[in-house]
């Protein structure tokens, strides 16, 4: 196996990128944050739609996502950018992130006197932070330091027959070596309760998982079904899934869960964007299947790398965590080659074994951890979306 290198943070966690993150406390200063980070090597800005006019569980979820994004080990330093009147308090958020030992700063546009003054002040801080981080040297770290998010999007028949099982073997390998993997997309485990609960490390974990699935089933039944070519299709699978050959949510789920591996125990269930615990094994994060929101949640819950399988092809990326795109469909591997990192179509087309594709995938995963850019990183994708519970005020 190749040697793995990472950045060890003051709290002991290991990251595989070394970002200076520019985080708006509220959507109103998204543009300021983007201009602060622009063209500064090692700096990246998040663009989001929250920070104010939310209440209750919805607000807490947004706040948790912003906080845990700042805490992700791929981030070395953070600048919080506030407007000054928003509900999210950039000072508080900065303090909570700084408790991890990271360098954190904050600036407030209404205090500094508008866009240009804020950008100028912000660029000074971020340039300094990035220069400091650039002096860090990645150190050799064990495989157990990986937190691997697994996700599928734009699935078709090939996802369940090849790319998901290959990713599952990699997830099992990481968990078996003392690392952690995170499975999510509650919609896409509907119908697999029998299989997943048997893998849960305790009855309490199994009960929590079943409860979250039940909630998603009820929600997906609460609206009328869509029609595709005259046939009413289930709400919980997409039109592309149906065109790609997936018939029911049970079929999609049975294929989808294989990316969470086969034998490693499920050691915990967390809420959307809630930090997973230290226990090695497979974690489950309750989330929608919607790709940008799911990958954002996976990153915020602590994933430092994501393997993302796609049958039809999708370009999605993330500002903090590298998203490695895998397809098992040869047509997609060719047509969507701009966006695909790993092609495992030899499984279906040439009879290559899942095991040998998994060994090659682990090598690529380590290459990306060690700094090789993913396609979505190279193309500049910075997708960040927080799922919503309630209406905006």
């Amino acid at each position, binding site marked *: 196996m190749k040697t793995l290198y990472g950045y060890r943070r003051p709290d002991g966690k290991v990251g595989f990128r070394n970002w200076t993150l520019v985080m708006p406390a509220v959507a109103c200063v998204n543009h300021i944050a983007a201009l602060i980070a622009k063209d500064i090597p090692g700096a990246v800005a998040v663009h989001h739609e929250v920070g104010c006019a939310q209440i209750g569980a919805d607000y807490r979820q947004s706040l948790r996502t912003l906080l845990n994004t700042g805490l992700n080990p791929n981030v070395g330093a953070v600048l919080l950018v506030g407007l000054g009147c928003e509900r999210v308090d950039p000072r508080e958020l900065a303090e909570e992130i700084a408790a991890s030992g990271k360098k954190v700063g904050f600036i407030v546009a209404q205090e500094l006197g508008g866009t240009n003054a804020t950008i100028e002040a912000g660029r000074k801080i971020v340039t300094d932070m990035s220069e400091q981080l650039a002096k860090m040297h990645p150190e050799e770290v064990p495989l157990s330091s990986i937190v691997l998010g697994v996700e599928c999007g734009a699935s*078709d*028949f090939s996802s369940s027959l090849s790319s998901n099982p290959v990713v599952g073997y990699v997830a099992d390998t990481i968990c078996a070596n003392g690392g952690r993997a995170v499975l999510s997309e509650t919609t896409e485990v509907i119908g697999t309760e029998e299989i997943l609960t048997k893998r849960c490390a305790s009855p309490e974990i199994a009960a929590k998982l079943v409860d979250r699935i039940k909630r998603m089933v009820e929600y997906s039944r609460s609206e009328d079904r869509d029609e595709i070519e005259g046939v009413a299709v*289930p709400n919980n699978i997409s039109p592309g899934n*149906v065109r*790609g*050959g997936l018939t*029911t949510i*049970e*079929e999609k789920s049975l294929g989808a869960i294989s990316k969470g591996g086969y034998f490693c125990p499920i050691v915990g269930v967390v809420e959307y964007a809630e930090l997973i615990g230290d226990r090695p094994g497979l974690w489950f994060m309750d989330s929608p299947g919607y790709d940008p929101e799911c990958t954002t949640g996976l990153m915020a819950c602590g994933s430092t790398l994501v393997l993302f399988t796609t049958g039809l092809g999708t370009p999605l990326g993330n500002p903090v965590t590298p998203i490695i795109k895998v397809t098992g469909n040869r047509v997609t591997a060719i047509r969507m080659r701009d966006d695909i990192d790993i092609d495992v179509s030899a499984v279906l087309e040439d009879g290559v074994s899942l095991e040998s594709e998994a060994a090659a995938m682990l090598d690529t995963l380590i290459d990306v951890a060690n700094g090789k850019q993913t396609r979505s990183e190279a193309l500049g994708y910075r997708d960040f979306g927080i799922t919503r519970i309630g209406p905006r005020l």
Partner: protein
Amino acid sequence: MKRGLIMNKLDNVATVLDDVAAEETVTIRGLPSIVEISTLEEIPRGHKIALVDIPVGMDVVKYGFAIGYALTDIPKGSYVHVHNVGSKRTEE
């Protein structure tokens, strides 16, 4: 040769890996012996074919698990998809 793949020996459907027309032979691998099935109708690449007659109401099985149930009698060699399969987890 038109190819198909079965995922589990309990399955009554397989995935076709090539576009197939009606009355074509699909060679299905994934079982100890290779099975050949003649199609009754056109089936797009990546979609499913019935390996046996599936009576109305019976489970449609893939990966060894029910992925839904037959909404109509589905004869061997038929195209199996949303027009003739219902989901127990989408309906009441």
